[in-house]
């Protein structure tokens, strides 16, 4: 809250992906989602809530780092930090002051497949708030001064990250999993690629991607459908009808097993591991989702947590998750252990992977996972911004407005036989590939 939130690092990018993932499995009978269509045909999902005079908006385009041209990695990211650096007749300072004086928060965030915007405003300022979204999206200035300042900020962030083991491990993972593919390139750019971006690239990115046929909107809070309808035109009515997307081909991750070590002088080794996953719309997705929950997704109760942290004290944090990308799919995990014992952590992850592939979960584990996943479901609907994000996530995945009411049913329907079958077909212990940054003993 005192740091200037100008830079979205890999964690932020991950958050976007995770959102899609969660939205995917989120559901609630607790919200009523309406579709609102403006006069000019802009559609948004709305959850009305008049209990507090505030409004949260989330919107997104299918346009993340994967649409950066080769050699210009970081373009989406740089665009995202420049949209509030002046628009229309206002320079950066005027634009930002206007927002701040009205306590309007407008932020942008970039992942591999998504370009997300979020807005939070008091009801009394919502007209201005929606107008500024429109200005930011259709008339960003990209003034030379602002471009250089934010480029400098991203460069400095990049250089910092190059000495962070977690970043290095993730980078190694992505570039090995997707060589020559946009997913293999760094969303936040490199020193070289950030330096190569020029103003025309930024303008082109906006023109190509910010379009009405590529737009998803979720709104939560103190606004009626009629009011929202007019607001939507203010914010998004000026967008061109059609995008001009840079194609991202489908790609299977090239993960062939083994351990890749990058030497780094630190007392602890950071490991990122992964293998191919399942696409979000795959019929077995929910079974895989439950499977992952039991393996390493389930907070303090997963197998990895129990074996690595609780029984042996080998790590503070160990986890796995599914990451269904738009054009690929992964199952990922991570653990950090002191150099002397990290080999043991790796061995246990492998063993758990093999064990689960062979036998699947127990009936008790499945029952417990279902109880948690369905029972914790309403918790996701406890703040406006979170609900707005989910509304967009579900639209991104094309799951339909009825999804929220059906989601727990999808979880309930999964049988033990399903999860065991998916464990056998999905989990590939010999393709589980480790990327370790540190001074791991014996590896």
């Amino acid at each position, binding site marked *: 809250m*005192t740091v*200037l939130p*100008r830079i979205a690092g890999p964690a932020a990018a991950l958050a976007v992906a995770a959102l899609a993932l969660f939205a995917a499995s989120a559901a609630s009978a607790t919200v009523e989602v309406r579709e609102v269509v403006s006069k000019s045909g802009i559609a948004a999902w709305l959850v009305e809530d008049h209990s507090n005079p505030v409004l949260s908006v989330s919107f997104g385009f299918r346009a993340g780092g994967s649409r950066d041209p080769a050699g210009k990695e970081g373009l989406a990211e740089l665009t995202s930090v420049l949209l509030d650096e002046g628009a229309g007749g206002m320079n950066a300072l005027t634009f930002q002051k206007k927002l701040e004086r009205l*306590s309007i928060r407008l932020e942008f965030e970039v992942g591999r497949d998504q370009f997300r915007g979020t807005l939070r405003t008091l009801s009394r300022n919502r007209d201005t708030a929606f107008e500024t979204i429109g200005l930011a999206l259709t008339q960003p200035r990209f003034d030379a001064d602002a471009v250089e300042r934010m480029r*400098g900020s991203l460069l*400095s962030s990049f250089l910092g990250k190059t000495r962070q083991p977690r970043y290095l491990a993730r980078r190694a993972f992505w570039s090995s999993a997707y060589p020559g593919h946009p997913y293999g390139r760094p969303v936040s750019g490199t020193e070289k690629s950030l330096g190569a971006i020029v103003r025309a690239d930024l303008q082109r990115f906006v023109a190509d991607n910010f379009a009405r046929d590529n737009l998803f909107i979720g709104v939560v809070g103190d606004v009626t459908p009629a009011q929202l309808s007019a607001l939507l035109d203010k914010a998004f009515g000026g967008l061109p009808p059609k995008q001009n997307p840079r194609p991202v081909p489908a790609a299977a991750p090239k993960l062939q097993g083994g351990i890749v070590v990058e030497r780094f002088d630190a007392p602890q080794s950071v490991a990122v591991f992964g293998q191919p996953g399942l696409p979000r719309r795959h019929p077995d997705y929910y079974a895989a989702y439950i499977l992952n929950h039991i393996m390493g997704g389930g907070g303090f109760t997963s197998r990895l947590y129990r074996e690595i942290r609780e029984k042996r004290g080998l790590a*503070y944090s160990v986890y796995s998750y599914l990451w269904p990308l738009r054009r690929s799919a992964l199952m990922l995990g991570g653990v*950090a252990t002191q150099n002397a014992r990290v080999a043991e952590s790796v061995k246990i992850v492998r063993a758990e992977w093999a064990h689960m592939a062979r036998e699947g979960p127990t009936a008790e584990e499945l029952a417990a996972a279902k109880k948690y996943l369905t*029972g914790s479901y309403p*918790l996701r609907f406890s703040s406006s911004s979170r609900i707005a994000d989910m509304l967009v996530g579900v639209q991104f995945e094309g799951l339909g407005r009825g999804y929220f009411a059906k989601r727990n049913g999808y979880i309930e329907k999964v049988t033990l036989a399903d999860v065991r079958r998916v464990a056998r077909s999905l989990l590939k212990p010999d393709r589980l590939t480790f990327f370790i940054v540190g001074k791991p003993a014996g590896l």
Partner: protein
Amino acid sequence: MLIGGAIAAGAPAEAGKPSREGLFNAETFTLKNGLRGVVVVNRRAPVALHMLWYKVGAMDEPAGKSGIAHFLEHLLFKGTKTLKSGEFSKIVAANGGQENAFTSWDYTGYYQFVAKDRLARMMKLEADRMANLVLSEDDVVQERRVILEERRSRIEGRPSSILWEQARRALYLNHGYGRPIIGWMHEMERLSRQDALDFYKRYYGPNNAVLVVAGDVDAAEVHRLAKKYYGPVPRVELPPRRKLAEPPQRAERRVIYRDRRVRRPSFSRMYYAPGYNSPAAQHAYALQVLARLLGSSSTSLLYQNLVVRRKLATTAGSGYSATRRGPSSFYLHALPKPGVSMDRLEKAVDAELAKILKNGVPEEEVEAAKQQLRDMAIFARDNARTGANAIASSLMIGRTVADVEEWPARIGAVTVDRVNAAARHVLQRRKSVTALLLPEQPTGGKPTGGKPAGVNPAGGKKAEVQKR
């Protein structure tokens, strides 16, 4: 779950619905055994946040036992007289609950976030571990390895954290706030089962705790459930509260840390500053306004002058929190642009501060900052958690629910003169620690690089270490 800034102290403001004259409209009760209860109703989702906060944290640790408050927090997830080790979390999960815990210098908290019909079950579990903790030697040995890994992740792996740890130690001359919450490695390695149990018996009891329930709940029903589950837990004999006053801060300090992992230097400075409980507490509200206008965003004075106009830094900001049992700090940070020497940046920062001290802060900026802070309070009411945290942390430091409810009004009462007086009181080099993060000294050859892992200014004011 980091608490510390304005929002933690914050509460919704005057612009709320006319039907709600209060802010969070919290209701309170006290049980016979001394447990205080707070209920914050928020009906946006059928959920309940159940939290138990103990008024004990790292500042209360005996000498030589740094990290014991946080270690005990981890160990509370082991067994009780009726639950096997690890069973607690299984039950919470089976009830669809999300849970965690956190330790700060001032307090230790535990929470479960559940569907509202699971509240009673959570109370039963939490009341049980308030008095019935059972630790095996094996539990302790394994969990100690976990906190050592946690320290490696949080501190040893991050040069900026190493620097902050040293800088805090330099800032507080006498107070436990100079000790890292997670503990010093060499002391953590020796924390024993008995250390944990001693600390537990001394401080964990209903008369040293605050129960906070927020969400779609009914205050009378929460009170009834609290009586049923927490009521039977006996009081503990609390030791007298240690209150260490700081001696006068007389000498400017500099802490310089070089690390080969650093690729670009960073500048930060902490000024010893009053909190809500300090002798100079009259500055506490004005300092929140000052931190806001000085360095909370890209329109604020430091960013505009150092980053935009003079192009000496890639980012710059400031921060402050008043919610402390003891003294607080006001901090500044800036990352130099490549090619800008640390010396030049520091001089520029000091020139900005000198300008403010000489000319005073602009009235327009003060009014804008006040408005933004009060607006934050309205947003805080959007979910159940923010208000619950603000009230709980306030009670933990000996303040009242009313202090939180009146926060927007008190921010509103801050004047330009008060901000200037607060700035003059705090921004004195003799009361400060300047902390520099630098690349490793070149040994004859070229420097190893230019930039840091980004000083994480939040690291400097990190108020809590999370459990899991």
